[in-house]
């Protein structure tokens, strides 16, 4: 358990600036997820924390100590990689004990720790196998175990689950969560899967282009994304966006679609003071739309339904709102006829409105 503090970090590769004056404070025992599209610099940041990359400027503090120039092994961190990065010629036991041997830990101590870690991760029967003889999930468990035995304060995960299939991903996700509860260590977890981010994180840092866009709890990020990028990136199927203009008139705030339809925004809490006639984007999540009216303050949204996608527990209905593609999530048991033009309903207080030009939340 230790705090991690990243101060004014900059990282360049040659002429490419990958991280730009990045600051991040992580509390003791916190589970931080770095979420962002490919190439946004997540791994770069993680590698810098691990000491596997030289930083161009800035400092990294772990547990109150400036470790900017320390060797990786001296930073009290453990790291788990997407590709597992198990040592292929060593048995599972060898993989687990390699780090300890490097640190000249006494033999019995190694035994003890390997036993403990393999118990926690339920890989005891696998200890004498080679990595090639393990399934994907087992490999990932061993990779986690390798960090575990070293009794580190900070765990770094770089997309640890993205090579696994959906089923295993769910399983191991739960396991990592459990582990965090059990150990209480600080964890930094990189992913571009928003389900993982939402389920695991205490706080999520959504990154794009080397900059942290929003750092907040999963709930906050899901409900009140600070800009269009975050809104679009988090959530699957992703938020629907419809362009239009704001209309501030006697009826209160309104949103005018390109086809002239006016949607009432009654109940929406603006972040600042919106300007009349401002070009804006309305964002509504698929599950925030109902095809039947459930509450009175709901706004009507005319929608052309084109296709139904059953996904087991629920179904997606695809359609168009004022020419823009739009999806609605309904219960898997329900059925709607397509194609059809119907009125849907959404609650403005749950939706998001962004400035069209800057993408910032209004």
């Amino acid at each position, binding site marked *: 358990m230790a705090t991690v503090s990243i101060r004014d970090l900059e990282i360049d590769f040659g002429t490419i600036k990958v991280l730009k004056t990045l600051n991040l404070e992580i509390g003791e025992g916190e589970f931080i997820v770095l979420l962002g599209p490919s190439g946004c610099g997540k791994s770069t940041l993680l*590698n810098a924390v*691990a*000491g*596997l990359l030289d930083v161009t400027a800035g400092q990294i503090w772990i547990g109150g100590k400036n470790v900017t120039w320390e*060797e*990786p*092994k001296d930073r009290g*961190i*453990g*790291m788990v*990689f*997407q*590709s597992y*990065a*198990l*040592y*292929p*010629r*060593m048995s599972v036991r060898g993989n687990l004990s*390699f*780090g300890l041997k*490097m*640190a000249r830990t006494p033999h019995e101590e190694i035994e003890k720790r390997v036993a403990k870690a393999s118990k926690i991760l339920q890989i005891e029967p696998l200890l004498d196998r080679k990595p090639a003889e393990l399934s994907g999930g087992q490999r990932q468990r061993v*990779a986690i175990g*390798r*960090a575990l035995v*070293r009794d580190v304060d900070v765990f770094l995960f*770089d997309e640890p689950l993205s090579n696994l299939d959906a089923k295993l991903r769910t399983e191991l996700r739960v396991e990592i969560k459990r582990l965090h509860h059990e150990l209480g260590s600080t964890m930094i977890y990189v992913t571009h899967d928003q389900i993982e981010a939402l389920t695991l994180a205490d706080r999520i840092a959504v990154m794009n282009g080397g900059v942290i866009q929003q750092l907040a709890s999963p709930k906050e990020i899901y409900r009140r994304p600070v800009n269009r990028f975050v809104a679009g990136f988090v959530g699957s199927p992703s938020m629907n966006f419809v362009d239009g203009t704001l209309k501030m008139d006697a009826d209160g705030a309104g949103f005018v679609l390109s086809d002239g339809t006016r949607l009432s925004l009654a109940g929406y809490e603006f972040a600042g003071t919106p300007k009349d006639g401002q070009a804006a984007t309305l964002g509504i999540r698929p599950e925030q739309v109902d095809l039947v009216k459930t509450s009175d303050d709901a706004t009507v949204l005319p929608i052309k339904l084109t296709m139904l996608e059953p996904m087991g527990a629920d179904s997606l209905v695809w359609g168009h709102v004022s020419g823009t593609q739009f999806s609605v999530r309904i219960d898997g048991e329900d059925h709607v006829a397509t194609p059809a033009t119907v009125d849907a309903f959404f609650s403005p207080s749950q939706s998001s409105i962004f400035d069209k030009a800057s993408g910032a939340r209004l």
Partner: protein
Amino acid sequence: MATATMTAGSTAPEPSGPRPKRLTADRVGLYVFLVIAAAFFLLPMYVMIVTSLKPMSEIRLGNIFSLPEAWTIEPWLQAWNSACTGLNCGGIKVGFWNSIRILVPSVIISIFVGALTGYALSLWRARGSNLLFAVLLLGAFLPYQVFIYPLVRIYSSVGIYGTMAGIVVTHTIFGLPLMTLLFRNYYASLPIELFKAARVDGGGFWAIFFRLMLPMSTPIIIVAVILQVTGIWNDFLFGVVFAGRENLPMTVQLNNIVNSTQGEKLYNVNMAATILTALVPLVVYFVSGRWFVRGIAAGAVKG
């Protein structure tokens, strides 16, 4: 009424199960090409073997492709046991053990140094490493012979001229460019995460090399071994210049038997001696040819 009776001619079986195998022209052509190519590659070997089994009287007739009329293995025995080079008439077997004694440390050390250099160049950073690599590769293109005079001078000033150490160092020097290239490319093709994981685990330069990288290098080591065994075993010039007169390799005997300018030339013995001398690399090829192809895929091709 139109009864769907089948006429006798169209009783072709309804397609079912595996496609009937037909020997297509393509396939035949393919084998013809392979066989012709194989003949081209085997022709010199055939001539050598046939010649080595003929008595000299038949060889003088000049029918190089004909099978021996009087088969004899005398040339083989002579080549191995009693062919003379100067006053020593022990055949080429004399140099065999010398060759082995040169081969083993030279192969091991040259590969080791190459692997180490390739490892350092691919995974670690050092100032000037690019320049080092460039000069190394450039050096690979110079004719060996130019190096001899300066090397003799350097060795004798260091005191390893004419010793086993001298010849091992020489093979290491001349093997270094290719070995470094092979290993550098191989290590660069491994997932970099493996290296990172080991760094996080506290592995230092040497620990990662010995405990992680070397055990993983089998495919490329096989390629390296094949190339080095062939090169070092067939070497004549360095062996004779640098190894000292106690350590002359087998190729010196071969050369003495084959390349005498004056006096009779026993072609049958020459051929037998050549094949005998080539046995070690040939065996290495026969045994590990399959891995060679695989290993090359692992190391050489990737830039």
